[in-house]
């Protein structure tokens, strides 16, 4: 089975003090640590596990500048066979819809039975690229996938829905799945493993190679644009509990009980 996995390089923000840059449309990424988008890491692992059970090839694709080779190389070290980077000045400012168009143009030329993406990206959090890509390619798809079983040409997948519901679907290959975290335990990628694939060639394609006009991609080819980025205003309602440890504990338990936090 031939699988394509779309991966994104994102800044890690859990520990960082974020600063909005001068344009007010992006965060200042100076000094931030970048790595593979967490959901995409699970998608790569899912692809490798499928390959390990039924064979085939894995191609990883990322849209972005040369720095993205870092996450592509990591995926190669993890077990992917080929890597392709899509880059062009015209791609700047693409929203999820334009991004899906770029990816659609690229995967058309690559034989595939299955396309995997992460559910969403850690930075923009739209959760739209995967499903938009499926729509453009005319592929059956399932989003928020937490389990994959393959039987011949048929996929049986579990989807994680709101309120603790789980849905089981069957899809015919070729298909697209957006992968939820927790579906597997992504393997560790060692530094030596990454060094071993350091010289492996990573394909590069631009808008021209993909037959995309400048109007189709970037800000012009997008359906949405960021007007302004700001931190949510600090609201009222915080309550500081005073007193000795015992008094504070008692007061906290009382509040939690009253508001249904604990039984």
């Amino acid at each position, binding site marked *: 089975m031939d699988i394509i996995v779309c991966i994104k390089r994102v800044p*890690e923000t859990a*520990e*960082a*003090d974020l600063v909005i840059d001068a344009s007010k449309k992006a965060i200042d990424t100076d*000094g931030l*640590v970048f*790595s593979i988008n967490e959901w995409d890491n699970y998608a790569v692992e899912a692809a490798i596990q499928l390959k390990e059970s039924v064979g085939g090839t894995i191609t990883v694709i990322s849209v972005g500048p040369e720095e993205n080779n870092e996450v592509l190389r990591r995926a190669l070290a*993890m077990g992917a066979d080929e890597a392709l980077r899509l880059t062009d000045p015209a791609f700047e400012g693409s929203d999820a819809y334009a991004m899906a168009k770029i990816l659609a143009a690229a995967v058309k030329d690559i034989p595939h039975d299955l396309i995997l993406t992460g559910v969403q990206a850690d930075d923009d959090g739209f959760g739209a690229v995967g499903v938009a890509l499926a729509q453009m390619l005319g592929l059956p798809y399932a989003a928020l996938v937490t389990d994959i079983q393959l039987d011949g040409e048929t996929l049986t997948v579990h989807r994680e829905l709101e309120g603790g519901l789980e849905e089981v679907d069957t899809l015919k290959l070729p298909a697209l799945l957006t992968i939820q975290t927790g579906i597997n*335990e992504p*393997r*560790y*990628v*060692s*530094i*030596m*493993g*990454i*060094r071993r694939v350091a010289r492996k060639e990573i394909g590069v394609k631009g808008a021209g190679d993909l037959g995309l006009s400048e109007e189709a991609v970037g800000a012009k080819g997008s359906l949405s644009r960021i007007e302004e980025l700001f931190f949510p205003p600090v609201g009222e309602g915080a309550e500081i509990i005073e007193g000795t440890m015992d008094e504070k504990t008692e007061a906290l338990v009382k509040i939690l009980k009253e508001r249904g936090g604990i039984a």
Partner: protein
Amino acid sequence: MEELQQPLPERLDLFTCIQCGKCTGGCPVSIKSPLNIRRVIRETVVREDLHGFFSRLEIWDCTTCSTCAIRCPRGLKPVDAIIGLREMMVEEGRIEKTIIDALDGAYKYGNPWGRAKNKRAEWAQDLDIQNALEMDPGQILYFVCCAASYDPRVQVVAKTLVTVLKAAGVSFGILGNKEVCCGSEIRRMGEVGLFEMLMEENMKNFGKIEPATIVTTSPHCMNALKNEYEGLGSEVLHYSQFVRRLMDEGKLAFETEVPMKVTYHDPCYLGKQNGVFDEPREILTSIPGIEFIEFGRCRENSLCCEGGGGRMWMEGTNQGKRLSEVRVEDALEMGVEAIITACPFCLLTLEDAVKTTGNEEKIKIIDLMELAVMGLGKTLETEG
């Protein structure tokens, strides 16, 4: 990199093992873990395929205390077989999530807790410490490392060491946010490539300032820098060795009475692995008022606290009582008021054991530098 291509038995000369079992006999975890180091050696020699080891969680029980290496009559290092197996597991990517998190943290942020790089020197911000990168060559560098930089309890140790160094009039600097993990624990969790990367990063900075002496908070860092950083020209000392020297040079004298009955817990990386037994004892017995008694199991026979070898990030199979709890109970029986130690991991594991055994009112775990600050009549940093 090529080293790993060579099979483990050849690389570590394991064919010469006579299976006497002294290693297992001395292993502090063999009493409570399925880990049998003698048997591991035998299996690595006779098995053609070592993949069977990969699912055996007990390989992560080893604390790398190196008692086995001290005892081996053939001069082998059985502990290195464990690390070798871990290296293979790391290469296959088949390791536990908590270990992955520690390695990822060290890779991305330069510390196994994955804390922000720019918060590394936060503990020192009000202490007026020189930026080592602006020092002339031939000075003293204090290598703080991760536990002392980020763990609130161990930050106190770093602060007390700074107090002691200043009291002795020592001029020194720290690398601040440019410092990265020494890699000792990373290497012992089997990530050789990452260890090398961290080493290169630190060596780059050491090369800029060519310190005459590097003083470390942790015996683990001291061991890594001294014995594993190839080409490092500086003298590397654990703080206990450096402070002992300051006493010899007449720069430091403890004159404040500290009436306390204490014992001393030998950190494995300081004692067993680097033979530093006397300096910490000489420091603490020079403090007036200290009544010092030895553990039954002390010096080369000291009982490991289980904090080393990556165990800070991996519980292991860990059946039975924690050795740190055994240690605390032994100390209580001896009637001491405090266990003094000189390693961040020992400090944390022993202090946890005091809490889990419910003995917080009866015994304290004190770092040697905290005691030294008391002996200098200075106030102890207790915040955090």
